[in-house]
């Protein structure tokens, strides 16, 4: 494992190399992909990217939580959370790529 962290810059660099647009335009396109995905999710839509995975929005009911430090009970408001379910292909590639040698 190399334990590096990639950012938007690495993704736009990959787009730049692959398609040969300017670096600026590549960065804008990466941003607009993330923006469209976010907008769809905020609308409550599921975002399903074949061979990558599915992002879905789930409603969580209100519940009583507890402050772990003080033990005090605090109400947790109902909220919407995002879950990502990786595709089989991604799971396999991640499992294979990180398997210990030998």
């Amino acid at each position, binding site marked *: *494992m190399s334990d590096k962290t990639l950012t938007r810059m690495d993704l736009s660099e990959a787009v730049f190399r692959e398609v040969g647009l300017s670096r600026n335009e590549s960065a804008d*396109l990466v941003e607009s992909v993330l923006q469209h995905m976010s907008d769809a999710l905020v609308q409550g839509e599921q975002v399903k*990217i074949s061979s990558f995975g599915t992002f879905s929005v789930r409603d969580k009911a209100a519940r009583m939580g507890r402050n772990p430090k003080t033990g005090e009970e605090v109400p947790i408001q109902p909220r919407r959370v995002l879950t990502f379910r990786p595709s089989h292909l991604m799971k396999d590639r*991640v499992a294979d790529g*990180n398997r210990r040698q030998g």
Partner: protein
Amino acid sequence: MIRSELIQKIADENPHLYQRDVERIVNTIFEEITNAMARGDRVELRGFGAFSVKKRDARTGRNPRTGEAVEVEEKHVPFFKTGKLLRDRLNGK
């Protein structure tokens, strides 16, 4: 929304690009994220979320049908944590 709809939205906004280039752009982004995780790297997209790899330790599992004990090897699984901005937007903040 599915991959082809995402590609269409980007294509509509960028009439100067060929449809096939838009496809390559979108595919490259997802491919790059998967490749990074396959190397054990993280991908941090501020405001959207972060993709990382989590290690699951080896364990002794059980075949639910026969009750027989089976050794399950250590493995690595993809993980996504939603970014703060998107989490807030989902909740109308």
